[in-house]
């Protein structure tokens, strides 16, 4: 009976794949192209791993690769929940199936596809790179099978545990953030690769020593241990992967049973659960100023956390603002002035303020009846931004300084950061009023079709203007640094830069406010296209 279910589910997966391709020529072409690309990549890395055979650090690299791939399997279902329809077992809920055969069948079905094939190639290549001797190859075959099953079971277990989340609005919110995780991950990988390039694969050894014991990388680690003659260690490593597989299947099976026997995420029960959790977030708002200022700040800050698009923007700015100066400092190539990057990146969040509201801007527009109202509105938004950016830019600057050990420069870099932040806020407020554009709420696009030019003018024009506005502070910094006893006076740049930043922000808000008040219908029309 159980083999029947397995065969049926595997056939179902194949049919879904085939029918998906039949839907449109474009989709077919995309699938074939990605398949060819993935296979080509798989072949290349297979070749690379085979060439690596005999390298002293091959074991470390391979173990790391396997661990990264396993991590990929774990997060994939969170970001691409619609990728595999058989991943959603609630679709099978009406069928009379027992958990055990179902688990077996779904596991088998998961092994069909490009992803598992790619993983298989990488694992096989890893074994070839490491194995020496017949026993090592035998362990290798067992290891590859175990590791592959762990990867698949991991993906299934994560998906089953989060299926409520994945099929809900929150899951779709999460998907918006996925591109971001990949982008930031790429930065980290890029940095890691640069370090490896400069100091060799030996850098990996300490990390690999831990990963060697972590399933599923431990299954591949076992091949290396056995090749070196440590049969006992190898056996233990294999056993750890096997144990992980059993544990994952048990977890998955339990979630599956619960899913199949309780109401799904679309029913009221799940909704009330979520409602109770939303409740507990009113506390810190008490400390905000009263009136429109506090109200606007509170709404802006809530949106930083709750609106996926806004959150994605913030996380990008926060991460890149930290990564660029810090990584450069770590590599020894950095300048302390790179710390201003954090202020610059975070200042971008002031741009297109009303676009971030989407067409809900009408609620704001209906309450602005004078330039004064517009000024308070914009100032509230700038203050909300400062609440995060000011401590963050300070933190990044201090961290960068600490890494470079250049403490005497701290005041002037902080001053420059604050001046830049002020200039960004000023130009951001002005371009928000003058060049607003829609941010589509669905998908990955950040500009509505037809408004790309507007967005470019807004962001890049604004950034150039901000840089120009900072010119006096930059000039003063350069002058104090080159003039003979200027070093004694660079501390002046901290209060000077901060005051300049504050003054220019206020000026920017003053200039932007009448424009905003006069252009409310035009702004509303521009931000309602998403």
């Amino acid at each position: 009976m159980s083999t029947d279910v397995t065969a049926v589910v595997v056939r179902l997966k194949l049919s879904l794949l085939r029918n998906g391709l039949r839907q449109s020529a474009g989709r077919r072409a995309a699938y074939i192209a990605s398949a060819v690309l993935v296979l080509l990549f798989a072949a290349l890395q297979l070749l690379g791993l085979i060439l690596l055979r005999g390298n002293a650090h091959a074991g470390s690299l391979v173990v790391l690769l396997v661990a990264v791939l396993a991590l990929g399997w774990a997060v994939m279902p969170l970001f691409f929940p619609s990728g595999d329809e058989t991943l959603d077992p609630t679709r099978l809920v009406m069928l009379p199936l027992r958990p055990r055969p179902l688990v077996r069948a779904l596991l088998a079905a998961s092994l069909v596809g490009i992803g598992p094939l790619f993983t298989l190639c990488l694992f096989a290549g890893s074994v070839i790179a490491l194995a020496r001797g017949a026993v090592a190859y035998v362990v290798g075959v067992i290891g590859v099978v175990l590791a592959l099953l762990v990867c698949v079971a991991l993906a299934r277990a994560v998906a089953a545990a989060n299926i409520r989340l994945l099929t809900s609005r929150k899951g779709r919110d999460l998907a918006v953030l996925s591109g971001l995780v990949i982008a930031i991950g790429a930065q980290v990988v890029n940095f890691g690769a640069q370090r490896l390039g400069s100091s060799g694969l030996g850098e990996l050894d300490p990390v690999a020593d831990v990963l060697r014991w972590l399933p599923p990388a431990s299954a591949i680690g076992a091949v290396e241990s056995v090749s070196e003659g440590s049969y006992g260690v190898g056996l233990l490593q294999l056993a750890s992967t096997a144990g992980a597989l059993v544990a994952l299947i048990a977890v998955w099976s339990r979630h599956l049973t619960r899913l199949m026997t309780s109401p799904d995420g679309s029913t009221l029960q799940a909704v009330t659960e979520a409602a109770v959790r939303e409740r507990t977030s009113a506390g810190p708002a008490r400390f905000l100023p009263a009136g429109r200022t506090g109200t606007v700040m509170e709404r802006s800050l809530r949106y930083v956390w709750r609106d996926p698009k806004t959150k994605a923007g913030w996380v990008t700015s926060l991460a890149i603002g930290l990564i660029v100066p810090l990584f450069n400092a770590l590599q020894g190539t950095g300048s302390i002035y790179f710390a201003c990057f954090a202020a610059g990146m975070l200042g971008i969040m002031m741009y297109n303020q009303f676009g971030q509201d989407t067409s809900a801007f009408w609620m704001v527009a209906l309450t602005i009846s004078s330039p004064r109202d517009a000024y308070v509105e914009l100032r509230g938004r700038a203050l909300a931004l400062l609440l995060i950016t000011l401590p963050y830019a300070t933190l990044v600057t201090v961290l960068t300084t600490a890494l470079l050990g250049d403490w005497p420069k701290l005041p002037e870099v902080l001053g420059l950061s604050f001046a830049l932040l002020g200039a960004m806020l000023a130009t951001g407020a002005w371009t928000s009023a003058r060049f607003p554009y829609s941010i589509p709420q669905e998908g990955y696009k950040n500009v509505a079709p037809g408004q790309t030019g507007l967005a470019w003018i807004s962001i890049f024009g604004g950034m150039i203007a901000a840089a120009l506005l900072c010119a006096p502070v930059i000039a003063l910094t350069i002058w104090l640094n080159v003039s003979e006893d200027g070093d004694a006076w660079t501390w002046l740049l901290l209060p000077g830069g901060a005051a300049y930043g504050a003054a220019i922000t206020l000026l920017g808000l003053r200039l932007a406010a009448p424009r905003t008040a006069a252009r409310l219908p035009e702004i509303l029309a521009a931000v309602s296209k998403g």
Partner: protein
Amino acid sequence: MTSAVSVRGLWKRFGQQVAVAGIDLELPAGKFIGLVGPNGAGKTTTLSMVTGLLRPDQGSVSVVGHDVWRDPVEVKARIGVLPEGLRLFERLSGRELLAYSGRLRGLPGAEVDKRASQLLDVLDLAGAQHKLVVDYSTGMRKKIGLAAALLHNPEVLFLDEPFEGVDPVSAQTIRGVLERYTASGATVVFSSHVMELVESLCDWVAVMAAGRIRAHGTLAEVRGDAASLQQAFLELVGAGGRDAGTDLDWLGGGAAR
């Protein structure tokens, strides 16, 4: 009779298309007013211009005696709006949205919270008040939008298709609140293409088609000799004589060929 809204020579073009072609209208104060017309008649465009959300190409609008474009301070405090097709701040919970909206209008915090609680109760939203608006159903969205529009006790309330996609229970709740509101002397202007609804709710109607006002006046005046507002409306917009019967004579009867 004093007018709540006075519209003169209102025009709006979108490229080649004329959405509103010169409207003159006096809407009496203290009435339940229906703006009716088929889809694309220009109802939403008109309401957007009257409420200051869309700039007219030509013409003037004044609400309770104040020009919408020259005197926004006086007008915006006196009107409540529930637009159609525009979002709310959906990542706030229902209660947070009301708190935000009321405080933005400058009401004291405690008063906002008191009114919000009462509105949430009356509109059957108390159970969902801590849920994000993005997770609300259509009916719940209309109700929370109505609550936000009523919070500052406006003199004139503009509602664009307030009953569109709303279930009968929510519709009845909305109706009850609006009837109580107009009974106190306030004015409601709402657009709809559901004639039965307009007929049962309104005491004054304006019929719009192709960007123009075809008829306006009390319900009885507009209905005239016709059996129902629906019939009068179809005649006014020139769709009365159209009968689908002769063209689709093959349709129905069960002979599947």
